[in-house]
């Protein structure tokens, strides 16, 4: 199937000379939730801004559902909704007016039923006649989402949608994003909250210093790069490891009360059976044990630090 967004060799040098994107290639599949994960300054906002027509690319090409964003900008932009990172709204307009305005701006005919549905979905309905300046930050964020949804985009960009947002709104937003995906909208969100990518995404792309470091199915990513940790709670404190256990690279934790063994789930043998045998022969007894799957965060940190 043709990707709904195809980015090829995308490069951006700002007027300052700073190169924010260094030849990015990326394909987004229709109907997926794609999380673009990367530390601050990685180039996430730059990439989104180029795709949405706000920033000019220095080189490279972007197709939105087959439409070149430069040559067929009108068709391309009609498909795309954007919720930018910065909270910027009109102050004096009412919620209803500003959301209706967005629909008009994107050339869509009046449809009060749709606007009402969007406002209800975002719990903004009883605020529809309020001036935006009277709303809280979280409510303003909802208004910005409503503006993006007012014109029924097929592709929705959410740039750090939950940065500085309270837990309740974050949960609401996740629910909304899933419902949107169920209606066939493709969603690209950027975040530096790993839990968000982990919770929401079908696929994850990691960007660092203007380069895509990897793109992977979330499940696959977890499986491929997932490491597990086995933690053993010891019966008696251990001061030092006997030499026979040296090959396992164990860590002593909790003041000698715990041993931590890190192993690779991909490896043919995890070495757990042998470790347990060797522990027994070394006379080390344990009361309990847990294993922990490393989170995306660990994966992310290792990716970003391994490839400077």
């Amino acid at each position: 199937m043709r990707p709904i967004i195809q980015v090829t060799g995308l490069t951006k040098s700002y007027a300052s000379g700073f190169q924010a994107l260094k030849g990015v290639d990326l394909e987004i599949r229709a109907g997926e939730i794609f999380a673009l994960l990367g530390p601050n300054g990685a180039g996430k906002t730059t990439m989104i801004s180029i795709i949405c027509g706000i920033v000019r690319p220095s080189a490279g090409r972007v197709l939105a559902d087959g439409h070149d964003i430069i040559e067929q900008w009108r068709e391309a932009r009609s498909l795309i909704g954007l919720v930018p990172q910065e909270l910027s709204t009109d102050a004096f307009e009412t919620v209803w007016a500003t959301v209706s305005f967005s629909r008009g701006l994107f050339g869509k005919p009046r449809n009060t039923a749709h606007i009402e549905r969007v406002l209800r979905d975002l719990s903004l309905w009883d605020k529809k006649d309020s001036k935006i300046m009277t709303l809280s930050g979280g409510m303003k964020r909802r208004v910005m989402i409503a503006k993006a949804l007012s014109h029924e985009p097929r592709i929705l960009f959410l740039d750090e949608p939950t940065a500085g947002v309270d837990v309740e709104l974050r949960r609401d937003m996740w629910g909304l994003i899933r419902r949107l995906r169920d209606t066939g909208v493709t969603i690209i969100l950027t975040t530096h909250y790993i839990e968000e990518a982990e919770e929401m995404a079908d696929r994850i792309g990691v960007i660092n210093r203007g380069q895509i470091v990897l793109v992977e199915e979330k499940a696959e990513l977890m499986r491929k790069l997932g490491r597990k940790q086995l933690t053993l709670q010891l019966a008696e404190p251990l001061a030092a490891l006997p030499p026979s256990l040296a090959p396992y690279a164990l860590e002593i934790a909790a003041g000698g009360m715990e041993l931590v063994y890190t192993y690779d789930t991909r490896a043919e043998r995890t070495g757990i059976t042998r470790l347990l045998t060797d522990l027994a022969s070394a006379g080390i007894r344990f009361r309990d044990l847990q294993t922990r799957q490393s989170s995306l965060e660990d994966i992310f940190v290792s990716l970003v630090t391994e490839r400077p």
Partner: protein
Amino acid sequence: MNYRAIYAIYRFEMARTGRTLLQSIVSPVISTALYFVVFGAAIGSRIQAIDGVSYGAFIVPGLIMLSLLTHSISNASFGIYFPKFVGTIYELLSAPISFAEATVAYVGAAATKSVILGAIILATAALFVPLQVEHPFWMAAFLVLTAVTFSLFGFVIGIWADGFEKLQFVPMLVVTPLTFLGGSFYSIEMLPPFWQWVSLFNPVVYLVNGFRWSFHGTADVGIAVSLAMTLGILAICLAVVWWIFKTGWRLKN
């Protein structure tokens, strides 16, 4: 063409004024009234009629031009500058709307407001002095042309400005002096020959005189020259807008 977008912006801009309707109407009415009290009644009574027109009636066209220029510029420049300032410009830039369409919408709204303002001032002036308009068609034409031209000019300033100082700079330091020295309150024939000559380099002189001619049938410069100058300024503004368009929005990185 994205007509719906043009209409959406136009309506948005008109609504912006609608929110301050009282202020938008009351302030020009009051300032016009003040001009008539000071220049018409107090000073004007000591000034003899110019070309057979009483001083009070003489200043009406200039007064309207003065407001038209400053309001067209400030309205149009603010309309496009403010979204840049608060960041809501992102939406305009990401929308399927061309630069030309956005220009039509913003300039159209600013010009509409200016024409309405001109009409309000005219109506207020009619309360103070007996007014006659000899060439109503040309009066309306000059009104609309000037409103459009200077709204375009303001739009360009709004795109160019990257701070409130720049936004105020041109209207304050260029347009206001040019208008005051442009024969709004006097006939340039009252000036010494040297300053008469200097005045001919002031484009506002032509605007004011063309407009005055449409009222009183007389002016310091010919109607054809006035019209040509007005159209010339319009052409320059259009050229600048075209250049901005050709070289990109100037709003994007």
